[in-house]
């Protein structure tokens, strides 16, 4: 027996269903009943009940990409504020290996970085790293703060929402899973983008939001509504967009490297340039049909990762 429907708004302690349903995130079982532990929206899939919170704090998870601010420079690491109850640490060797450099000349207090959570220990201390595409320090731009649970909504299905905003405002946008968004572009456009992002956050639980935002954007920039398009209604899916992590991309890179090595070892000595060209093509096609975190092709903040 179930007492709620999909996408219903529930509050903590509310009884959701009887024993035959499974208790997922945001719920708990007590006396044979599944109850909600959060204020949020019900998500029901295959008899598994979850509650997606309206508000929450970011808890670091291994593999996440986050935006953080350097809060302290220590002897061999930086302390990073990642908009969470737990601060992150960026060890010096993650940035420049065994080399010895003065840390505050590389990143200083107040610098904003795009990072990956390398590891989280049992007391939730997050170890951060810079391995991955587009990781490194941001130059200029503004930071917009939204609830981490609204991040998937901001990105949209396969990046539909974020790409639309990027195209229309000509801003570079990078979204961290900790709910921080970096925006860089024209000063006015930055502000407009910020307002749009806050609007998405406030209305994240409404349906047909992409179209609504589209209209708003066209009105604000062109002064007229977009041409009518028979577009299917976007379903409200609060799932983590698959392309948010770079794992696949990284793996592919790794594989390609491996292949290149193998060919080399065979002694055929193929044209390396050819291989690289092929790789580039592969990567490009990959990027074209997927969401990339920020438009990496022309970003100024890319650091050269050895």
């Amino acid at each position, binding site marked *: 027996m179930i007492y709620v429907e999909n996408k219903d708004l529930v509050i903590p*302690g509310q009884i959701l269903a009887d024993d035959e349903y499974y208790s997922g995130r945001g719920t708990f079982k007590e006396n044979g009943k599944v109850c909600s532990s959060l204020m949020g929206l019900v998500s029901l899939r295959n008899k598994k009940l979850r509650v997606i919170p*309206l*508000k929450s704090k970011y808890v670091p998870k291994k593999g996440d990409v986050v935006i953080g601010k350097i809060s302290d420079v220590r002897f061999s690491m930086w302390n990073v504020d990642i908009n969470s*109850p737990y601060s992150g640490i960026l060890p010096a060797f993650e940035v420049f290996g065994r080399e010895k450099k003065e840390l505050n000349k590389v990143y200083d207090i107040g610098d904003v970085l795009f990072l990956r959570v390398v590891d989280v220990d049992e*007391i939730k201390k997050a170890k951060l790293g810079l391995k991955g595409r587009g990781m490194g320090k941001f130059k200029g731009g503004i930071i917009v703060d939204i609830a981490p649970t609204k991040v998937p909504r901001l990105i949209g299905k396969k990046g539909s929402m974020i790409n639309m905003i990027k195209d229309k405002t000509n801003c570079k946008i990078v979204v961290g899973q900790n709910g921080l968004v970096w925006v860089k572009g024209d000063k006015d456009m930055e502000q407009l983008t910020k307002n749009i992002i806050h609007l998405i956050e406030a209305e994240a639980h409404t349906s047909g939001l992409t179209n609504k935002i589209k209209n708003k954007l066209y009105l604000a920039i062109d002064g007229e509504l977009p041409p009518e398009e028979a577009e299917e209604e976007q379903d409200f899916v609060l799932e983590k967009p698959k392309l948010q992590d770079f794992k696949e991309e990284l793996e592919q890179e790794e594989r390609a490297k491996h292949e290149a090595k193998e060919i080399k070892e065979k002694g055929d000595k193929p044209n390396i340039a050819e291989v690289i060209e092929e790789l580039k093509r592969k990567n490009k096609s990959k990027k074209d049909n997927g969401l990339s975190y920020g438009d990496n092709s022309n970003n100024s903040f890319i650091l050269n990762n050895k």
Partner: protein
Amino acid sequence: MMSEFIRKDGRKYDELRPIKIEAGVLERADGSAYLEFGGNKILVAVYGPRESYIRRLLKPNTGVIRCRYNMAPFSVDDRKRPGPDRRSSEISKITADALRPALMLENYPRSMIDVYIEVIEAEGGTRCAGITAASVALVDAGIPMKDIVVGCAAGKVDDEVVLDLSEYEDKEGQADIPIAIMPRTGEITLLQSDGDLTEEEFQKAIDLAMEGCLKVSELQKEALMKKYSTEQ
């Protein structure tokens, strides 16, 4: 005989004072609530879970909650000397104790939740009203909870057991029993007793206060639902 008894302010023995609850009133706090309970006006702000620099308070296996109950100097008829006193430190402690059983902080080890309860205007029963408002603010902050804790008092005035004592009844009455419960299971998280009651009267008072709690609980839920359905 019960139903004929009318109290000083015209209420029946089991009647609550008018209540108004609003969730999410403060911009900068993670969660907040405003509550009017008769003549009481209470504002609650919740911050967290957040990192705390008071390392000795943090626990490695779970999050901790800290409460501060504070009365504004202008909240009572005679000006109250600002700052914490014996009464407010006691209420701070019992509020934290009353809320703690409902919180599920296992997923936030080494973190701290701060609850600030500010009494802007007081008219009897502020500790129960404070707990009621604080749990609404905690829900608003998105903190996982087993249930929404709710508080309500019962007592004895003119040899009658009555619900929700006002300031006058609190001072002139014979007994005051504030309780806080988790309404789904009916578990009591706070029980204080002040004054003289027979065993029968005590039982009656608890039952009455429980009933009152359930009524207030409905209003809490309504307030939370209202806050987020207007945005829809």
